[in-house]
């Protein structure tokens, strides 16, 4: 007996299916089914995973693509015999999805009618309407129509079977058996019940009889099925499956052809563009070895047929260039000479020629990887350009599958089991997922869940089981799929939650599996800042800089000196405190050092214990040795320590004999290893492979543990290389044009690590004067002003909280030449009390009022704006009579608080200065004096808490950043200290720390002993 399951839903029928697509195909193969049709409800989101699993495990079961569609009481399973039917199904799904908001669909009768190629399994509903539907369906779909009979051992089975047989006889429709499968195995019944309860927003106990009454909706043995169904029905399933020949591998991506002029082929056009680019990029002639590389690259592009891909990206970046939008490409393929010539990236190949061997790798079988970052404030222009150029039919974003994570799992499973919501919140808030010493199950028991109680057991098991289950589709940050024909013939398109955006039903892994290319259009704040700095420099100094100009200059020792001192607030990628504490140790002195610096301070290398060996070797404290020439080739540029993802992959190939395909699988397993644990299956292969090639077991084990540590956090060199360019450019700007640099950063917020307040303080420490907001001097944006003492920054009106941009801009454009002289004059422009108050609170009216309070007080007087009373005299009089204001200008603390409230920063005195002057602080040491103290000496520091981080890489440690009036202090709090002094640890805004100072070269930490919460000092 043979059987093909034609109706099976995976967990991509969200909250219905209770098994992953991979599990379903594996189980179907195990049960020796001929075929399995994954038919999620109005979706094909899960099919690629099933397809990948079939290929990966070499399964004998044939995968059929289909979908369950519901229209009123009509239920149909549509499966695809061929490519045309598949395109048709994608179109139907897209149409139904587009009529509805995100996550829902609305099928129209016309959609069903328009199916001309797909096979239809009709699932009668045992109602009177069935007769109507039978004749209706037959009218449109004769010869492709079957009655799909399911048997789930329910109460009404007998009636249902009789009904179906009578329909079959009456309308001469053939019957095929099908399973209506929701689970790969009966053991998932509990989870299916839970999912069902979640869907209905209630608990399992209260769902009642809509729950499945048994586990028959799982994949059942053929033996059992042959007892439940007539033989002819089972045979029919096999016949139908045999007629389905469509395979996802046959999907081909066709690139938009309009990019290529008539006289050219894609390849010849690409060659021509590269030729033009060569002249521009190498004005003094192209070095011979570079020409060689270009030839090699172009040959490879031609061989793999990637020309369109490069042309597409070239087209997008040319648009950005035209519009003056700064961009930068990154990724393995981005760091090629071809991309340099096409102006996709500014990484100068002469500087880092070492990178170019890792261009698109044929043997690694990876698709070319190019991400392009654009200015974050202007990325939307690029996206709109793509939509306009290709139309909404041909361009859409890739999806991201949002899955159950710990918190959502606890919340939903808990609710389904009837556990009190407050209790669940309590669990969630108090479980530290980073605490590796205790698994969450152990922690939840500590929090009061009885582990051996029946409910406790269920809860833990089910939460574990549901994690990783897809919950809904969301949009990828910027991965575009662009095609020659309508996208909906390739994959269904649905609405995203953002209006005017559409997403396809596959995520980036799915696209990668099918070798479909996407173009990543990403947003990067630093590019905005750099462009703004360039613009201002050109405006004031007339010099026109470009990124490539700066990288083409020789490496600048002054700039690197600044970096070695960890003076990197605002510098791209190396401004975090972890980076800052590494800079004085690593002492970057050239571009490639920066590439390493960016990649090394990541969870991957840190967890893989690669940082310290590298530092030691760099400082000459440890000998550098290689077990073989091949390994040396891979690791020599990082002194024998694998730091980049590419090195690990390459290592697996040269040292353990992985094939290109296997290495690619390894790469993916690394990316998903926390989720799937798939990495372990490579262990033996890797270790055996290495031993066969003569490496010691110990070395092999070490490499594998490094791979595990690397996990999903490994950072690719190809990305680091592009980031290093921006890091260098931003550092260079900071060093040579500080006023312009800070001004540009302030104008690009929100971005980076630091707030406006922190940036301004850093600027002042670099001798950049900052002038306050003023309605008569400020523009909307912050600006650089020229004075006799150099350049200063004048804060712009954009800083004022709550102020509408449009009104702020009007204030600037309508400003009289002599400036506003009275509140009255300003009000005529603003016409809004709220805005006036915002301006007054920010002390922006200080040139013609007596402080912010009197200004506000005057503005609040409603009568002054009533037409009858609006005589200038009255207003002037009120403002002159400043005593009307209830109190005089309050003390300085109030001013500072008011500054923070209205603008988020204060140019007044720092809170710590104020408290110190008020005599409220006992003896303490300021940040700038810490340098002078002895290593291991006792110290008391006080500061505003500006950062608190508990990185996963440092177990049991929290890093505090305290800011006083001279700089930032790094405080390390051990978990023991934190636990004993939770109150201060959790709540303090101003913190006093007594502890021991630790100095290692220029890196200073205070190891906290006692924490005191001083926040109350600043309240009034």
């Amino acid at each position, binding site marked *: 007996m043979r059987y093909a399951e034609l109706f099976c839903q995976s967990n991509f029928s969200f909250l219905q299916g209770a098994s992953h697509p991979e599990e379903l195909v594996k189980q179907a193969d195990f049960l020796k089914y001929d075929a399995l049709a994954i038919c999620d409800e109005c979706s094909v989101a899960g099919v690629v995973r099933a397809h990948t699993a079939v290929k990966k495990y070499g399964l004998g079961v044939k995968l059929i693509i289909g979908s369950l569609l519901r229209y009123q009481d009509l239920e149909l399973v549509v499966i695809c015999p061929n490519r045309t039917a598949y395109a048709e199904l994608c179109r139907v799904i897209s149409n139904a999805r587009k009529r509805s908001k995100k996550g829902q669909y609305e099928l129209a009768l016309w959609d069903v009618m328009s199916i001309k190629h797909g096979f239809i399994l009709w699932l009668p509903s045992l109602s009177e309407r069935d007769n109507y539907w039978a004749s209706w369906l037959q009218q449109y779909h004769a010869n492709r129509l079957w009655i799909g009979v399911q048997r789930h*051992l329910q109460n009404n089975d007998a009636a249902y079977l009789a009904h179906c047989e009578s329909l079959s006889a009456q309308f001469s429709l053939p019957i095929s058996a099908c399973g209506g499968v929701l689970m790969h195995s009966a053991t998932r*019944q509990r989870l299916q019940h839970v999912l069902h309860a979640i869907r209905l927003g209630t608990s399992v106990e209260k769902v009642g009889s809509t729950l499945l009454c048994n586990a028959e909706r799982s994949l059942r043995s053929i033996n059992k099925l042959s007892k439940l169904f007539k033989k002819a029905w089972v045979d029919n399933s096999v016949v139908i499956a045999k007629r389905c020949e469509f395979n996802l591998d046959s999907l081909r991506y066709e690139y938009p052809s309009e990019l290529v002029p008539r006289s050219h082929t894609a390849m010849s056009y690409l060659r021509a563009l590269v030729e033009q680019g060569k002249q521009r990029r190498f004005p003094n002639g192209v070095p011979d070895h570079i020409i060689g590389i270009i030839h090699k690259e172009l040959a490879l592009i031609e061989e793999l047929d990637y020309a369109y891909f490069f042309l597409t990206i070239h087209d997008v970046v040319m648009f950005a260039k035209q519009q003056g939008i700064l961009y930068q490409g990154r990724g393995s393929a981005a760091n090629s000479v071809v991309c340099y010539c096409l102006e996709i990236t500014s990484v100068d190949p002469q500087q880092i020629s070492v990178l170019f061997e890792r261009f698109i790798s044929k043997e690694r079988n990876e698709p070319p990887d190019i991400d392009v970052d654009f200015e974050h404030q202007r990325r939307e222009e690029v996206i709109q350009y793509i939509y306009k150029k290709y139309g909404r039919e041909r361009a859409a974003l890739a999806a991201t599958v949002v899955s159950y994570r710990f918190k959502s799992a606890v919340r939903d499973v808990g609710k389904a089991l009837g556990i009190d919501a407050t209790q669940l919140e309590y669990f969630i808030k108090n479980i530290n997922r980073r605490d590796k010493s205790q698994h969450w199950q152990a922690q939840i028991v500590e929090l009061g869940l009885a582990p051996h109680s029946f409910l406790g057991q269920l809860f833990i098991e089910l939460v574990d089981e549901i994690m990783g289950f897809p919950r809904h589709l969301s949009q990828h940050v910027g991965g575009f799929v662009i095609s020659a024909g309508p996208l909906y013939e390739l994959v269904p398109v649905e609405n995203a939650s953002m209006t005017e955006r559409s997403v396809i039903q596959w995520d980036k892994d799915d696209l990668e599996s099918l070798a479909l290319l996407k173009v990543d259009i990403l947003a990067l704040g630093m590019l905005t800042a750099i462009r703004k700095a360039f613009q201002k420099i050109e405006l004031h100094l007339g010099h026109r800089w470009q990124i490539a100009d700066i990288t083409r200059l020789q490496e600048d020792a002054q700039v690197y000196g600044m970096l070695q001192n960890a003076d990197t607030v605002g510098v791209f990628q190396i401004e975090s405190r972890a980076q800052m504490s590494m800079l004085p140790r690593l002492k970057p002195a050239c571009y490639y050092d920066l590439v390493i610096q960016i990649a090394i301070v990541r969870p991957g290398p840190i967890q893989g214990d690669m940082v310290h060996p590298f530092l030691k070797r760099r400082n000459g404290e440890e000998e550098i040795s290689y077990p073989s020439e091949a390994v040396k080739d891979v690791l020599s540029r990082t002194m024998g320590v694998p730091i980049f993802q590419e090195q690990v992959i390459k290592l697996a190939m040269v040292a353990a004999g992985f094939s290109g395909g296997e290495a690619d699988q390894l790469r993916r397993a690394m990316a998903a290893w926390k989720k799937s644990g798939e990495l372990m299956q490579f262990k033996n292969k890797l270790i055996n492979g290495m031993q066969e090639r003569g490496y010691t077991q110990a070395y092999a084990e070490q490499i594998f543990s490094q791979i595990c540590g690397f996990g999903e956090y490994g950072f690719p060199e190809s990305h680091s290389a592009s980031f290093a360019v921006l890091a260098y450019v931003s550092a260079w700007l900071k060093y040579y044009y500080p006023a312009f640099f800070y001004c540009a950063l302030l104008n690009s917020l929100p971005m980076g690590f630091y707030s406006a307040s922190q940036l301004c303080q850093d600027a002042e420490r670099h001798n950049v004067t900052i002038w306050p907001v003023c309605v008569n001097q400020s523009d909307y944006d912050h600006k650089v002003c020229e004075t006799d003492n150099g350049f200063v920054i004048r804060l712009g009106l954009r800083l004022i909280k709550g102020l509408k941009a449009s009104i702020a801009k009007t204030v600037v454009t309508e400003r009289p030449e002599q400036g506003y002289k009275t509140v009255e004059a300003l009000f005529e422009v603003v016409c809004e009390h709220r805005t006036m108050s915002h301006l007054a609170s920010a002390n922006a009216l200080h040139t013609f009022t007596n402080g912010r309070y009197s200004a506000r007080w005057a503005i609040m007087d409603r009568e002054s704006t009533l037409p009858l009373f609006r005589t200038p005299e009255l207003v002037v009089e009120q403002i002159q009579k400043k005593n009307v204001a209830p109190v005089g200008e309050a003390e300085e603390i109030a001013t500072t608080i008011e500054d923070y409230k209205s603008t988020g920063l204060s140019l007044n005195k720092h809170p710590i200065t104020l408290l110190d002057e008020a005599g409220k602080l006992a003896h303490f040491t300021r940040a700038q004096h810490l340098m002078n103290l002895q290593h291991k000496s006792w110290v008391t520091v006080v500061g505003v808490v500006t950062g608190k981080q508990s990185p996963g890489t440092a177990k049991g440690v929290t890093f505090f950043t305290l800011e006083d009036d001279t700089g930032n202090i790094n405080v390390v709090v051990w978990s023991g200290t934190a636990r004993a002094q*939770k109150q201060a640890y959790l709540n303090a805004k101003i913190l006093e720390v007594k502890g021991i100072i630790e100095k290692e070269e220029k890196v200073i930490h205070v190891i906290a002993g006692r924490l005191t919460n001083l926040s109350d000092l600043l309240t009034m």
Partner: protein
Amino acid sequence: MTLWVYLHFNSLQLDSLFCEQAHQPIIIVEGKDNRVVQACTKAQTAGITIGQGLGAAASLCQNLQVQPYNKELEQEKLKEIAHSLYTLTSDICFFADAGLLLRVSNMLSLYQGLHAYWQSISTLLNRLGFNYCYACGYSPLAARLLARNGMNKITDDHVLLLRAVRAHALHESDLPHNMSEQLTRVGVHTLDALLSIPMVQLAKRFDAELVHYVGRLLGHFKHPVNFYQPPERFSRELELLFELENISWLSKPLNKLLLQLEDFLSSRNKIAYQINITLQQRDCEALVVTVQSKEGEYKATKWLALSELAMSNVQLDAPIQGLSLQAKRITAYENTHGDLFSKQQKGGSRTALLSILQAKLGEHAIHTMQVHADHRPEKANSSVTLGAETPDLIRDASFIRPTIMLPFPEILSEKVIIQQGPERISTGWWDAQPIIRDYFIARDPSGRWLWVFRDPTQQWFVHGVFH
């Protein structure tokens, strides 16, 4: 000017939990935003403060016990306190957030001075055992402000009270947050500053609300309050001239009390849902008989009939010397009996019948059937006490189920012929009573249609009979 005392009960719910004896720290949390609203001393020493988030609180204290805030409970407790205070002071008024306002001025002549008055009030309060803060004031708002900020001082010194009021910051007052925020932003941080501004200037710039607040705080504007009215009670006693040994002879004296109850209720247009009849037995403890009426009643005849039913089950330990009658749960009478032409007036209503049955058989003796939407036959229906029913869940009516279900499945002992099936029921994992059964409809030799099942051990059972 009128003098007021304000009592602020800051941990009413906590106090009524008697948690001081508990070993674990307890906090009360407002469910909406998960903020701590009350915390016991143990919790407070652990660093938990009022207004903190649940997350922060929980991380400060390992074995924290969390109770959701229960507004109704607090209201109920506050009523009880007012009720007790009513014996000492006449004008009591409820305020939001567990506060009571007492009008003092008119009580002073009775108590000969403020301190004697406070003496008796505080003695009573201390006996009740709730934590509270208190203060005096020449306006309700002033007293409230001072009490809520823990002044805990009783005085009628005008100057001192005003000074105390002025010393408070704006955020400590009852002013809405946005208003005190507005004031802060023109440099007004304290009530002192606020009160020094002329009203006219305020009125020009702020909502009427602020002017009202200031006016009321200073006692310049009238602050209307509603005084507490104690609930109606009915309690009468009747001394018997001679001892009664037979309970059935009680009807006459009881009727006398019930007639008084009828007068009491009908003159107020009210009905009672329960009466307690206390029988004083010679040399024995008094016996209390509780009689309930499901639909509420005021007529003596109806109550008498119910009482007789209820008392027919009572065993006397000794002769009765006297009896008393208390009416419980008195509410306003609302005519629910429909109009003159309504057909439902005939005969006793369902609730009246249930009252009679409960009076006769006892409150918990009446049960009703309830259907549950559960696949397990044992769980598909159950018998519950009257009044404990939950709304029926939807159940698929098309299910074929036998007319007569056996209380427990019985082992199938004869040969049957299977007619239909199987219907597999394997569910119930969530409450530790799972079943796995294949049900069939079968015929036994005598022609009866049986509902039988087979369990995983291949044992067969009969579970019901089709009629």
